[in-house]
């Protein structure tokens, strides 16, 4: 009883999670993970490392082969995706897999309608989401006529309208141009300020460095490291194993570390500050 009240505090908790696909392939093993409310967690690793398998457990699309996953205290093993979608919203990597309606407005209404919310509640949520995501100009447009970056934004917005406390974003900046990536970055900051918990699966190390509170690194179906971006990018063993490269700013600071800079930096601004300080002395 004490345990269950402890557990219900954390939005996401994985206990010795294993997932074996029919046919015998072990996609995930021995995974222990806890994500706190309001955290932005980046899940990184090459394709096939188990990242997508892991996050699909968070809204019940996949059920554990053994072990447990608790979302806002609810054991996902017996819960339907329908019910879990109120808690955890999963934005798929390819917006074309989710967009189908004739207007952006209908897309935003889809999730809340499916949840069976009353008309006025749906209206309010759509208003709010349109405002937050700045979708006024395109609200009546056909989603499939929008540019790819905008489609991704609409896909995130349509999940947001369901008011989940947890958002899972699968590669939100892949295939984006720089403007689109900047929009996503801003959105994630806004989601954080709303108190949402964000799980970010991404190859974009610059994005991770800028927005993530914590990074979980995966390799060969296992979590091999977990820590702040600074800790992960400083760990050459983790980087070598996952074959990931930190953002260019970080790489520069790593090359200058010791001789010029006292510590490694994560972002452009941080590097400018650090080097400016060195120049002033």
């Amino acid at each position: 009883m004490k345990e269950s009240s402890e557990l219900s505090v954390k939005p996401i908790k994985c206990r010795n999670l294993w997932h074996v696909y029919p046919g015998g392939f072990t996609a995930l093993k021995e995974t222990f993970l806890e994500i706190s409310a309001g955290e932005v967690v980046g899940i990184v690793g090459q394709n096939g490392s188990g990242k997508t398998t892991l996050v699909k457990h968070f809204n019940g699309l996949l059920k554990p082969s053994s072990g447990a996953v608790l979302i806002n205290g609810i054991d996902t093993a017996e819960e339907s995706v329908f019910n879990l979608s109120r808690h955890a919203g999963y934005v798929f990597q390819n917006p074309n897999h989710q967009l189908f309606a004739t207007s952006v407005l209908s897309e935003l209404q889809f999730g809340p309608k499916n949840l069976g919310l009353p008309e006025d509640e749906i209206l309010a949520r759509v208003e709010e989401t349109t405002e937050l995501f700045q979708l006024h100009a395109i609200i009546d447009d056909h989603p499939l006529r929008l540019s790819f970056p905008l489609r991704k934004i609409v896909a995130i917005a349509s999940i947001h309208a369901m008011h989940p406390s947890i958002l899972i974003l699968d590669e939100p900046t892949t295939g984006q141009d720089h403007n689109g990536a900047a929009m996503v970055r801003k959105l994630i900051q806004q989601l954080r300020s709303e108190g949402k918990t964000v799980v970010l699966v991404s190859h974009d190390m610059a994005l991770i460095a800028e927005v993530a509170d914590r990074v979980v690194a995966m390799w060969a179906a296992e979590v091999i490291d977990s820590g702040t971006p600074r800790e992960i990018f400083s760990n050459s063993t983790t980087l070598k194993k996952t074959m990931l490269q930190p953002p260019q700013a970080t790489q520069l600071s790593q090359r200058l570390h010791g001789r010029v800079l006292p510590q490694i930096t994560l972002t452009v601004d941080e590097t400018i500050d650090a080097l400016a300080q060195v120049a002033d002395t």
Partner: protein
Amino acid sequence: MAHHLPIPVTFVPGNSWFHRLHPTPKLIWAVGALVLAFSTRNPLFLACFFFLGLLFVILAGVLTTYGRVLAILLPISLSLIVFQAIAPAFPQPWIPIARLGPFTIYQEGIYSGMSILLRSWAGVNFAALLVLTTHPSDLFTALQKLGVPHELNFMVSASIQLVPIVQREFLIILSAQRSRAMQATGFGAAIPSIVPVFAGTIDRVQQLSMSLASRAFGSKGHKTNIRDIKVSTKDYVSGIVGVAITIAGTWLLISYSEQLDWSEIAFLPGWLSVTMVVGAAVTFIGTMIYFWRKANV
């Protein structure tokens, strides 16, 4: 990849006698099998033919793959027996054998249902033998030599490649929409599941056509082929035998169609007919429920 999908439509590599046979005789057999199967309704002949095809499938070593298709589609096609039993596609008069609630089961119905089932499956067994033991490129080269235009050939082979892909995309889209609290059944699920499949397929085909044009697809003139299919005596012999059996067999089946018409003779006692129909219905509904539940976890 393909083995995770419900209906595998792929070539299974192997080294059986059937694999080594030239695609053309196999094509002849597949077509011949269909012609023979549809020349009669006699259940004994069809059952034997069905098992002959199945034997060949086993000998070719492709039973495991084919077995999966059979395991899904056979129970579903049992529904044919159920529907035919109460409403035969057969000339009147019908002989009633038993009553099952508000429905009457007719002798011709059972006969007709079984014959349609067996005809289709006897034919499918040989078609499966062809597809599972022939590399798609070889099959299409053979068709080309028989005069099928290259572009048509390509369209069909590329479409077949697309089948597992479209299946996979559909499953992804279903997951994506379920993540938006869409219930996976009912009318409301149709458009959100299907529109993205269409849009995605159209995108894919557009890019494919640009890629093909960039590799000179549609060029006039002589085309060469990377695959080298050697023809040997056994291929000619098999082909000729196939044609001969088809023609002779069809002629015999039609000449003796009266003697082979067992619709009056293969008289099933009432209790057996009812059991069969109920059994088929239960298996059919059971299979549907099984798949519905699998899709809705």
